[in-house]
């Protein structure tokens, strides 16, 4: 059952159909910066009530992990005037299958700025860093110009809108590493260090950028903040799936007729998204598999998506995760071994190399999957792959090893016959442990 209600008549709010919304004057004409104005110029709001409103909205992070945003904001320690604190907006979107933040950065950048300012107000932050993937070069140039305009208008900078709230926004360009999207890596990268993830604890709210309290939110998450203030947390909580509410940008790619980014409530039926929103399977082919939330989330077989909706609970039951809601759709002609080969190549290429299991394991996984894909694999390679996945999962500083292991584990688990068909017949029985006694 769809939890998205009357989604066919859904009115877009994150990316409304307004021409030139990326320009400040157009954004202003469409209630732009009104949420910030309301917070700063009326008595209705203080930092606590802003955080409470976000908590009330039930907003969960859109960057992949789905952590409740209001709760995250409340982790910041009490304000100490001598200790700076920072906000980081994570725009280092680079997982295969995920391409929704770039739409916001391109078409509605001021909503991200406004969201950053609201979050900064709620947490008493005076500097927000917008860390953007370096490959988004064109939009970065454009956003810098728009940010300049916002500064000129007094929306950003000292004493915003005449209030005593001051906050700067700094746009920081990434240098092209997937790992920089990991929050502690992002902080190291921002500091000018090598982007190795940090050990947690301490968490960013205790020791973040340059050792000071820091909160890191995804672009889409922060873009929701002005909507929540403008329309109220209850309004937001009423959109889509109850336990995972709000509007979501679905990035649909693969073998569908109309791939693209679509804004709809959470809790959309996957089948609705494929067959109605994205115009159905390309060439009328049959659906074979889909990855619901970016390449690291477990792949689902076509027979596993009946009645499954795009929200954390439903996807967990189905055996996958919401992730970043970047959906990879694959039709019946897809070679799942070849698909996995591409995914393992990505994680091999992007492992930062800090921790042993990930540094060595990702390459080994790619080696074996490539061998199977080229018809040179053995049946026992499948067991070895599973073994390597268990050797990597949960044994590294950050979650990249898990993100690399899960696609392997679940793709083999759910499409084992395809892998076996590509393997050479083996004299060694499957499951035999040859070396590791």
């Amino acid at each position, binding site marked *: 059952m769809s939890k998205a209600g009357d989604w066919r008549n859904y009115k877009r709010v994150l990316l409304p159909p307004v021409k030139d919304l990326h320009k400040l004057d157009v954004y202003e004409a469409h209630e732009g910066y009104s949420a910030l104005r309301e917070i700063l110029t009326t008595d209705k709001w203080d930092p606590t009530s802003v955080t409470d409103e976000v908590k009330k909205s039930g907003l969960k992070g859109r960057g992949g992990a789905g952590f409740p945003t209001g709760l995250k904001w409340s982790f910041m320690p009490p304000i100490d005037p001598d200790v700076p604190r920072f906000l980081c907006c994570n725009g280092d979107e680079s997982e295969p299958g995920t391409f929704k933040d770039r739409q916001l950065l391109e078409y509605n950048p001021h909503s991200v700025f406004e969201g950053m300012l609201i979050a900064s107000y709620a947490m008493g932050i005076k500097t927000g860093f917008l860390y953007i993937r370096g490959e988004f070069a064109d939009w970065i140039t454009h956003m810098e110009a728009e940010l300049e305009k916002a500064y000129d208008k007094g929306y950003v900078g000292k004493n915003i809108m005449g209030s005593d709230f001051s906050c700067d926004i700094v746009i920081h360009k990434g240098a092209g590493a997937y790992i920089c999207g990991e929050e502690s890596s992002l902080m190291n990268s921002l500091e000018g260090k*090598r982007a190795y993830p940090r050990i947690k604890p301490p968490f960013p709210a205790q020791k973040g950028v340059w050792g000071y309290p820091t909160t890191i939110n995804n672009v889409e998450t922060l873009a929701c903040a002005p909507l929540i203030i403008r329309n109220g947390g209850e309004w937001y909580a009423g959109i889509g799936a109850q336990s995972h509410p709000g509007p979501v940008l679905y990035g649909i790619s693969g073998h569908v007729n109309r791939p693209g980014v679509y804004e709809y409530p959470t809790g959309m039926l996957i089948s609705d998204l494929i067959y109605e929103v994205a115009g159905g399977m390309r060439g009328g082919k049959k659906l074979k598999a889909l990855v619901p939330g970016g390449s690291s989330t477990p792949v689902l077989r076509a027979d596993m998506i009946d009645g499954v909706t795009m929200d954390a609970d439903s996807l967990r039951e189905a055996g996958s995760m919401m992730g970043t809601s970047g959906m990879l759709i694959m039709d019946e002609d897809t070679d799942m071994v070849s698909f996995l080969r591409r995914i393992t190549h990505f994680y091999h290429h992007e492992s930062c*190399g800090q921790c*042993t*299991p990930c*540094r060595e394991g990702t*390459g080994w996984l790619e080696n074996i999957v490539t061998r199977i894909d080229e018809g040179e694999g053995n049946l026992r390679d499948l067991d070895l792959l599973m073994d390597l996945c268990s050797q990597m999962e949960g044994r590294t500083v950050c979650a990249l090893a898990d993100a690399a292991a899960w696609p392997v584990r679940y793709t083999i688990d759910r499409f084992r016959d395809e892998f076996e068909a590509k393997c050479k017949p083996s004299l060694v029985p499957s499951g035999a442990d040859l*070396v590791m006694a």
Partner: protein
Amino acid sequence: MPTITIDNQTFEFEGQHGLLQFCLDNGVDLPHFCYHPAMSAPANCRQCLVEVGMPQRDRATGEISTDEDGNPLIQFMPKLQTSCSMQMADGMVVQTHRSSELVKRAQKDTLEFLLINHPLDCPICDQAGHCPLQNQAYKHGPEGSRFEFEKVHKPKHIDLGPRVVLDGERCINCTRCVRFTREVSKSDQLTIIERGVKNYPMTPPGVEFNEPYSMNVIDICPVGALTSKDHRFKARIWEMSKTASVSTVGAKGSNCYYWVKDNQIMKVTPRTNMDVNEFWLADEERLEYRKFNEDRPDGPTVEGAPVSWELAWKAAADCLSGVDGSRILFLGSAWATVEDNYLLAKMADAVGASAPVYLPHVEEGHGDGWLRTDDRTPNAQGCERLGIHAASAQDLKARLEAGEIDVLYVMEDDPVASGVCSVADLAGIKVVLHHYNTTNQTLQAADVALPAAMAVETVGTFVNVDGHAQRLRPAKAIAGVNRTLSMEIGKCRADRHGTPFDKWYNESNLINCQPGWVALPAVAAALGHEMTYKGPKQIMEEVSASNPAFKGATYSAMGELGVRLESTGVTA
């Protein structure tokens, strides 16, 4: 007191401790690579994984929940934890590879990963034999490898700087070297470049890894990725004996090991002493070892002609006898031990001369407030405490030129090279010289030349710039029989090669020289002054008992780590 249970054994502890260090200190041999006690714990090698649990607490009361027998219920963390980055807490329960199959398996898995792209060129690797990766692979690793692909190739034999060579393929990316330059030496000359499995340490563009402490990364490298340009391929670790002693290059007296093969010093490595040099050794302290091997004299000479030791003692005594004590200049030495300087002072006293002086060898600006000091001698502080004070070359030159001196008795120094006088200036003066090397320029003017055992061949005491009295041990043998030296050599390396009872023993490169505590009593005896000691141990006992500046500095008290003497207010 808070307690922690490790493998069902309960320990008490106080204060804040990292779990890994506590385990290592208490005999739990947890494998690890990236952790080093002097640096931050990045937890990147993932080798020290353990299971960690905490007592379950009742949510409502905060009391520790217990089972029927009254034992606390333990809630284990869902993932294995790196013990290096884990702080200990009261009631913590830890399971290591000794009690947990899961941990055992995880350690084996990590080692399998570490080895797949490691070149496994142990037979030609300098680190083999003292390689943490090799040792831990044997102890905890898998029996073989399931890796059937070409290993990753990375740059090899790269000169990172003038003294350190990198083999990128051997590197396991523990980042110890990078953290050393960042956190300890603060030169920031190394970083990791590339990404993922291609990672290796490298200098930033245009930077040479030439800091004065660069060679420490060779010791802390847990594999053979970083090797010494000076030492690589010279000797296998098992062909050398190592002797715990003290560096002679500066006044800091850094603790070190001398590595000896065929009676030649092959390399010098740091020895941990938290009161002196912690874990480190400056490059100059490692590289100035050739003086122990090269240009060494072969037996005593009189007027340039080789003689027996007995004749040499006699000749030296003849130079002194019948001369008015005030016309004899005794030159002590900050290169020589406390014992030898003490005997020299005794001899000066016996012949009625004034107390010896020594020539300071100070190089302004050389020190860095850490291990390198302006003073380039190891024992100036010891001389001062004995009442042997520094005399400038100008003063001595003036005294010589004024014709005040008939006999110059030099212990282990080089007045000509130090600018006191020229060889010609010494023409009318009798010169007795105890010397280390044939490069000693005073040698040409010496009437009697007595080769002296160097710091790596003798037994004695140095007092460092901070007043830390430390023992020297003989790392290599000298020609001839000396019971004290043989005993000391045997004591500190009974099971290692180098002793006459060892199959590796050989008699090449033995230097015909004598320690000061043999030579000086022999000369004194020939003069008719008895200075009979059983050996340097007894001399030091006498010094520590008679001189308050050496209170407590007996051999047994000094042991391997030395004793801190009370400050005398005297600075060398």
